[in-house]
């Protein structure tokens, strides 16, 4: 069947999603004066605006990828609908509305990617993508349709351990199950990559469930322990998958790693606000990673963006007594990324604007991590007032980096991100000129040899 809009690229789905993103940014001045309560369906806060804007922008980018060659117009419309569903999920006033938005977004993801599923597994893919929303809806019913409103005061009842586990399972279900059906059949490379990116985006958006639960209340201590355990298991599964994977497993590995670290971070967040900031950072960095994961170079550079978040989660784990977690996070993360590089054989090496922009964003954000924390993450984490305390331990030196202070005023961790970026820049410039000189000398020597 001749595709609609054959030979022409339509930008209106892309424009629609970008417009949605801009509208959300326009709400920032209003939210600065106080959250916007649109009960009983929606509630607009800083956390929602941060993730809603980022996800909408990403969907716009994926939509452009689909329509680039004049095909995939239908998919672009579906993406616009998924964007609206994700906004329902993001700005939900209560858990049931969140589950509905999440489920509809899952159906949309399945509808777009079903042709790329292996034969006979399309229904299984739908069930796996919907399982997360089903778990969330069940949790909403069992817990009496909780609302995502910070408590006004007094003693807050923590989420029971069973609710925490259910939330974690909802997160893992969307990531692990949805990506199990990763076969790509009879599709152009650009559409295969776009479909996989969409599934990964869906998986990486899932930990937002835990962030919204923290708006209401903290975790039961057993719930914290279970979240950390599940997060480390997910990360270890990512390591195992990276070790065993070949060529097609890269995205799945990256999702497992990012979701695992985010689970650990949000698990500890109830006891350490620093972990909440770190987990939020890792979620955002994971999105950059997914967008550029088709290019090996770009994937590594985007993964650099996760380091400040990993640093915060590591120190927070130390502060809360999860010492083994703190020791193992960095080695496991490096291992996962390294194995995806080693086992990768088919990624393109060229870099175009599609990849250059996320790379530039990730490098800039890492170098100016204190700016990202103060402007974007601190207001978002403040929204989780029901479960996360005030972030007082993180000190910012705008010119150099960030430090974590101890109660006695000492320093327990220090990340001079801007300072390190300056060092790398200066050494890179020196090395570039040295390399140019070396090539000139070699070429001159070769020219002299030929003349003789």
């Amino acid at each position: 069947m001749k595709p609609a809009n054959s030979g022409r690229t339509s930008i209106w789905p892309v424009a629609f999603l970008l417009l949605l993103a801009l509208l959300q940014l326009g709400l920032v001045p209003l939210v600065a004066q106080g959250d916007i309560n649109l009960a009983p369906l929606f509630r607009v806060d800083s956390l929602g605006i941060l993730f809603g804007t980022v996800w909408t922008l990403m969907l716009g980018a994926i939509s452009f990828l689909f329509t680039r060659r004049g095909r995939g117009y239908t998919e672009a419309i579906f993406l616009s609908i998924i964007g609206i569903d994700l906004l329902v999920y993001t700005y939900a006033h209560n858990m049931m509305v969140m589950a509905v938005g999440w489920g509809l977004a899952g159906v949309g993801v399945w509808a777009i990617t079903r042709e790329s599923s292996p034969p006979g597994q399309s229904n299984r893919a739908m069930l796996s993508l919907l399982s997360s929303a089903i778990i969330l809806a069940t949790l909403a019913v069992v817990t009496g349709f909780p609302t995502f409103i910070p408590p006004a005061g007094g003693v807050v009842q923590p989420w029971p351990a069973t609710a925490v586990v259910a939330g974690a399972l909802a997160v893992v279900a969307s990531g692990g199950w949805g990506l199990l059906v990763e076969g790509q059949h009879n599709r152009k490379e650009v559409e295969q990559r776009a479909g996989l990116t969409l599934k990964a985006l869906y998986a990486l958006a899932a930990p937002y469930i835990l962030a919204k639960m923290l708006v209401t209340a903290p975790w039961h201590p057993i719930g914290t322990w279970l979240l950390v355990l599940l997060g480390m298991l997910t990360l270890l599964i990512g390591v195992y998958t990276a070790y065993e994977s070949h060529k097609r497993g890269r995205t799945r590995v990256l999702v497992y790693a990012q979701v695992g670290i985010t689970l650990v971070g949000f698990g500890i967040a109830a006891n350490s606000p620093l972990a909440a900031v770190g987990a939020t950072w890792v979620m955002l960095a994971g999105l950059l990673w997914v967008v550029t994961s088709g290019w090996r170079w770009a994937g590594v550079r985007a993964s650099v963006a996760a380091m400040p978040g990993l640093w915060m989660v590591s120190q927070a784990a130390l502060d809360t007594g999860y010492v083994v977690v703190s020791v193992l996070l960095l080695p496991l993360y490096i291992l996962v990324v390294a194995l995806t590089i080693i086992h990768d054989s088919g990624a393109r090496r060229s870099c175009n604007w599609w990849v250059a922009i996320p790379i530039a964003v990730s490098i800039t954000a890492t170098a100016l991590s204190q700016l990202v924390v103060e402007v974007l993450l601190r207001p978002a984490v403040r929204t989780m007032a029901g479960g996360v305390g005030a972030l007082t331990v993180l000190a910012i030196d705008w010119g150099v980096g960030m430090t974590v202070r101890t109660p006695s005023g000492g320093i327990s961790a220090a990340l001079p991100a801007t300072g390190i970026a300056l060092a790398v820049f200066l050494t890179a410039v020196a090395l570039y000129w040295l390399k140019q000189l070396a090539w000139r000398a070699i070429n001159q020597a070769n020219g002299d040899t030929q003349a003789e």
Partner: protein
Amino acid sequence: MNPLAGFSDWALALLPRMFLYPGGLAIIAAFLLALFMSRPVRTAVLHDALQLLARANIAALALAWATLSILPLPGVNPLPFPVDRFSLVAVTGISLLLDLVSRKERDADELWPSLAIVLALMSPVALQRGLVPGEPSQSIASYVTAAAVLAGLVGLFGSVRNGWSNAARWLAWWGATLALGVVPGDVWELVTLPAALVLGLVAQRLDWSRYATFLAYVLALAALATSLLLPPG
């Protein structure tokens, strides 16, 4: 403090470290080490040196050089902003990742010993409860950690011939162990660098690098276990 003043203080403290000591000296030493290990016998030194320079992976080498420049070594004027062990290990680790990306062959020879060193260098946080390095310790855990790093350096030595960035990272791992105060500085400085060079050469000639790497992992896990068992300092 004024942010620009803080940035300026950092930059002014960084420049001599980068081009003199410890960064400048270390990067030249790394170049010479890589040149010595990579050149075949009876070839022109200048030609090999230029080839080594021309083939350098700028991104990976810049990161390794940056690590060498910001090491909080004993006896060197400290930087105006502290650097913790996570930062040092992460920057060197990213340098490794960038080198892995740029290579045409898919070998993990450098990965496994490097990871053993990363694990060993991160283990002492269990004793200190903070990422900022504390005072050098003389506990069993510290010496086991030092032994793990030494074994890792021996296992890693064979990769030094692959390029300037590999040699720079090798020195960065050694320097990070000194800077993080795993063991008292004079012990590490006097004993381990010559030992790592000699043992690394021997291991490479006898093809024992994998055994050294295995030993590094065993010792790194032992260091973690002993750090967990000891009370925090």
